[in-house]
Each structure stands twice: as C-alpha cells, then as structure tokens.
C-alpha cells in the first residue's frame, strides 16, 4: 500500500477523534476522542518512519504512547474527582470559568 493510504487513514482517525472531542457531552467520551487524535498522529509517525526508513518516527511513537497513557491516567483521575464534587461529568454543566 502506498504512503497516502496510511495518511488518509490517519486523517480520518484524527477527524473522527476531533468530532468526538467537539460533540461528546460526556467527559469520558471527550477523553476517548483525544485518544483517537493522538493515535492518528502515531499512525502518521509510524507510516513516515516506515517509508523513509527513519527510526526516529518509531521512537517518537513510543514516547507518544507513554505520554498518552499518563494523560489518560491524569484525565480519568480528574474526571473522577469532578464526578465526586459535582455529581456529573456532563461537559455542558462544567462551566465555572464562564465569563
């Protein structure tokens, strides 16, 4: 398969993730969307690494995965705390910063 097939896949996954982030009302859903966007990036990195025979992309990907794990851990922890305090994780209701 040529490179652009991977890139199209990555773009699709990224846009699906962005759509999820923008439209989901549930905080966990938003986190899932972010996860998708990050994985789209990973696909890009791996694809370029493969086609350009450059290992740097693979190493970046390893870092990204590690960071993503940490991000999800922190994100879910925040969601749990928010739920304990506000009894909801609906993003619409979390508007303390409204001007």
């Amino acid at each position, binding site marked *: 398969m040529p490179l652009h097939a991977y890139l199209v896949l990555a773009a699709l996954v990224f846009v699906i993730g962005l759509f999820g982030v923008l439209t989901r009302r549930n905080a966990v859903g938003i986190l899932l969307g972010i996860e998708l966007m990050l994985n789209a990036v990973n696909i890009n990195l791996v694809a370029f690494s493969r086609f350009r025979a450059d290992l740097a992309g693979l190493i970046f990907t390893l870092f990204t995965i590690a960071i993503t794990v940490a991000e999800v851990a922190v994100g879910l922890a925040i969601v749990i705390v928010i739920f304990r305090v506000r009894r909801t994780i609906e993003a619409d209701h979390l*508007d303390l910063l409204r001007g």
Partner: protein
Amino acid sequence: MRIGSPELALLVLALPFASFLAIGLIRPLRRRGRPAAAVSILAMAGAFLTAGAMSWQGIPVARGLNPAVLWTWLPADGGPMASVGVWVDGMAMQMCVLVTLVSLLVQVYSWSYLADEPPPSLGRYYAYQSLFAFSMLGLVLSPGFLQMFVFWELVGLCSYLLIGYWYDRPSAAQAAVKAFWITKLGDLGFVAGIVMLWSGTGTFDFWPLFQAAEGGALHVDGLTTIMFLIYLGAVGKSAQFPLHVWLPDAMEGPTPVSALIHAATMVTAGVYMVARAYPLFALVPSVLTLIAWVGAFTALLAATMACVERDIKRVLAYSTVSQLGYMMAANGAGAPEAAFQHLTTHGVFKALLFLGAGIVIHHFHTNDVFRMGGLFGQRPWVGGSFLVATLALAGVWPLPGFFSKEAVLAGVLHAHLSVPFLMLLATSFLTAFYMFRVVFLAFFGHAPVHHEHPEPPVAMDAVCRALAVLTLALGLRAAVASHHVEGPAWLPWISLTWAFAGIALAWATYQAGRLDPARLAAAFAPIDFLARRRYFLDDIYGGTYRLLLLGLSRVVGWVDRYVVDGVLNALSAGALRAGDALRRIQTGQPQDYVYGVALGVLLLLVWAQLG
C-alpha cells in the same frame, strides 16, 4: 585676638538662634513653658548686652570703607554668586540695640502677660520669639539683598506664626493668613527687583552696588523699574497704602507681639531697607517722589481711620501705619537719616504704648475705649507711662517724637514736596487728636462700674516704667544736645501748635464736653463715613478676591468636573462596556475553546497556503 564688632555681631545673631534651636528641638523644655521662657529671655539679655558692647566699640572701619564681613555662600565659576555675612555700620548697630532691647522687654512682659497660657503654648511662643529676634537681627545686619530677602521672609513667617498664636480663634487665623498674603504681594516685587538688579550688575552685595552708585558707574537698564519693584517689598512690609490693610487685623495676636513686631521692629523693616539701600534709590528721583507721596498719603489716611476706631489696639495699629508713612515720606524726600531717627524713637515709644495698652486691656477686660475710664486715678504709674509715650507720639517738646518728627518734616520741606508736607502737618494734628482721645477716654473720665481690679503684674509694670524712663531720657538727650535740623525757624512752632491744637480738640470733645463728638463727626461727614468703613479698601480686596479668585476657581472647578472628569468617566465607561462585551466570549465550555483552536489552525493553514 581682640574681639571686634563683626564677631560681636555674629554673637548677637547666634544667641537667639541657639535659644530657638534649644527650645524648638528639646521637647521637654518646650512643653514645660516656663524654662523655655527663661532660656529665651536669658539669650535675649545676652544678645542685648552684646549689641550694647558692639555699639560701645564703634564702627570697625572708617567711613568710606567696606563695613561688611563676608563669606562665600553660592560659589560659582566666575566668583561667588552670593555671599552671607554681617554689615556693621552705625545704622545697623543702633537698630541691633533697638531690636534686642525691645525683644528683651517684650519677652519679659510676656512672661506675665501670657502667664495663664498652657505651658506647651508658652514654649511655642518663646520659640517663635527667639526665631523672630534672630531673623530680625539677621535682616538688620544683612550685607546684601539676597540675605536680606531670606531674613525678610523669615520675619514675615514669624509674624504669621505670632499673629496666629491663638490659632483656634478663627479671626486670629484669618488675620495671620491675611498678613502673610498681603505682605507676600509686596515681596513678589521685592524678589523680582533684586533678581533683575542681580542680572544687571552681577551682585547682590550692597558694597559694590553702593560704590558703583555713588561713583556714577551703575549702568543698569530699567533701574527705575527695579527700584520700584524693590520698593514694593517695603510697601507690603511697612504697611504703606494700598497694602496697609493687614496691619490693623494683625492686632489679633497677643499684645506683646503687636508691640514688638507690628510697632517697633518688623514693620519698620521696609523703612530700614529703603534707608539702607538709599544710595540706589537716590539714582531714581521718580521712585523717591512716589515714595514720599505714598508715605504722606498713608500717614494721613491711617490717621483719619485712627480717629474713628473704638478698639484701643487698632487705634495704635493705625497710628503705626501713619508713623510708618512719616518715615517713608522722609526716605522719599531724601532724608533717610531723619527716617531712621524717627524709626528708632518711634520703636521705643510705640512699644511702650502697646505694652501700656496691654495693661489697660488687662484692667478693663475690653478693647473698647468707650467702656474704659478713670485709669489714671487708679494706676498713676501706668497712666504716667502711657501719657509720656502719647506725648512723644504727638510730638511734644522735649520728647523724642518731637525731634524726629521735626527732622522728617524739615526733610520733606527741604525736598520742596509741599503737598506731602501739608499732609504730614495735618497728620500731626490728627495724631495728637486721636491719641489724646484714647487718653481722655481710658485714663480720665468716669470709671466704669467694675467688679474686680486686678493689680498689673510686676514684670509688666516694670517694663512699662523702664520704657517710659528710656523715652524721657532719649528726649532729654536730644533736647540737651544742640540738635541742628536743617529747616526754617518756624517749623518747630508750627508742629507744636498743631500738636497742641489736636490735644485741645480732644480735650474739648472727650474731656470737657464742650463739643459733641457726633457734631464733630457730622462736620466731617464724608471723611467720617469713609474712615469708618476703612475707605472700602478691605471690601475692594475682598470683592476682588471673590470676583477673581473665586470666579477663576469656579471656572476651573467646572472644567475639572465636566471636562477632565468627563473624559475620565467616558474612558472608564467605555472600558467597562468593552470588557462586558468581551467577557461573553468566555463560555467556560472547553469544547467551545477547542472549536476556537480548530478554527485558528484552519485559518493558519489557509494563510500558509495563500502566503
């Protein structure tokens, strides 16, 4: 090393200053009152003895040599810009003796007069007194215009502080401010004049200026304007028309202060300054003529106001204005020696009059002469002292006022100023009249029914007696010495006749009852009307103040309220509106922010593609 007059002069200056510093800086001393008074009186006594020793020793240099001892004050590249020092000549020494003597006597008198004051106030009073003595002596000993100006302002400050001594009385506080502002009006001219003189000649010092003036080598553009401006300072300080209005109000201060500052010393500073700078004034005859006319007019105007005044201190204040007019007229007529002679004799007997008036007020508990009477029978010594001073002021032989007044009149006549001469003659008649009006009303006639007659305190009485003896001695010395006044032989007889005519009129009106005061007033109805209203000068000043200053303030207030504040209010309202509008962008919804980010990235991409 032999101690010369300049060193003694410095000591004279240092003693009151040290006393001021001690009282001013050492708080317990000031708060206790009496010890502060003792320090101040001792320092003044020392200064008086030193001044006496200085004048005993005589002038340090021969006539025609520089009598000034100078130190550089403002060093500059081309020689010092200004110097400080002492100028010790006959006039300065005589003035030093007068100032220290009257200061000493007044401070002793105040010891009793202000006995009921709370101690902290008394300490404050003596701190001011010491500062005043220092400033006045510094003014007298000034060897240049700049130093004179500095001390000139210092005495003005002391005058303000002492008039407002009872600052919780609104009238005293107002009088203090009025005195300060009106004299400042003249001082503006003074400072402008000396700066212009400096820019023309490059020096503030008297000696080079006098040398150049006498050698005819003083070439300054607009010297007439300069000397007129310098004279303005004297107009304010020496209460000449039209700036005389502050002096009667200054009587709100304690009576000893009036005796010292507003009769004997500070108000004569203007006369002294003109007499001191006479070599310069001599170059501008037009200003001299103006000085003589204004002086004579002031003398006459103030005398008419004194005739209708009921307050004994104000009568004396107007009489001071009137006598200052005499001195200035002599200055203007080219007889500064006569002016200075009248200044010294007037200083002694006017101080005596004020201090005597203090006892009178103490006795009757009122300032109104119509509610007094018969004091002579009860207090012959007080009455005698007051009478001596009154006769001296009226110019009766052989009291010092007679000789000095004659010298002034002779000087004015010699300068062919006939109208001012006639005004001064009329003034001498009025002087005798209004002073004997006070004497007959307060010391003779019927004593008002009175519950208590406090004995005058010993110190006050002793000071008055000492001054009375001094007045007599001065007069007798002048009478014994073959005084040779340049003037026609008829002059003494004329002035004596006028004086006695004034006394006779006062006697007929207020003592014998031959003349009804109301009818006398009706005979001079227009003058009486104007004099009772002080020639509307206070109203004119008040009106001008209200019209100009308050009008301007109102305009400025309007601009401030509606223009300056308006712009500020518009700005702040705009900022609030804009902030309120912008606030609504912040929804608090993270997803909206993500929309923003996505949109931003999209725009960046489009921009990158287009660019």
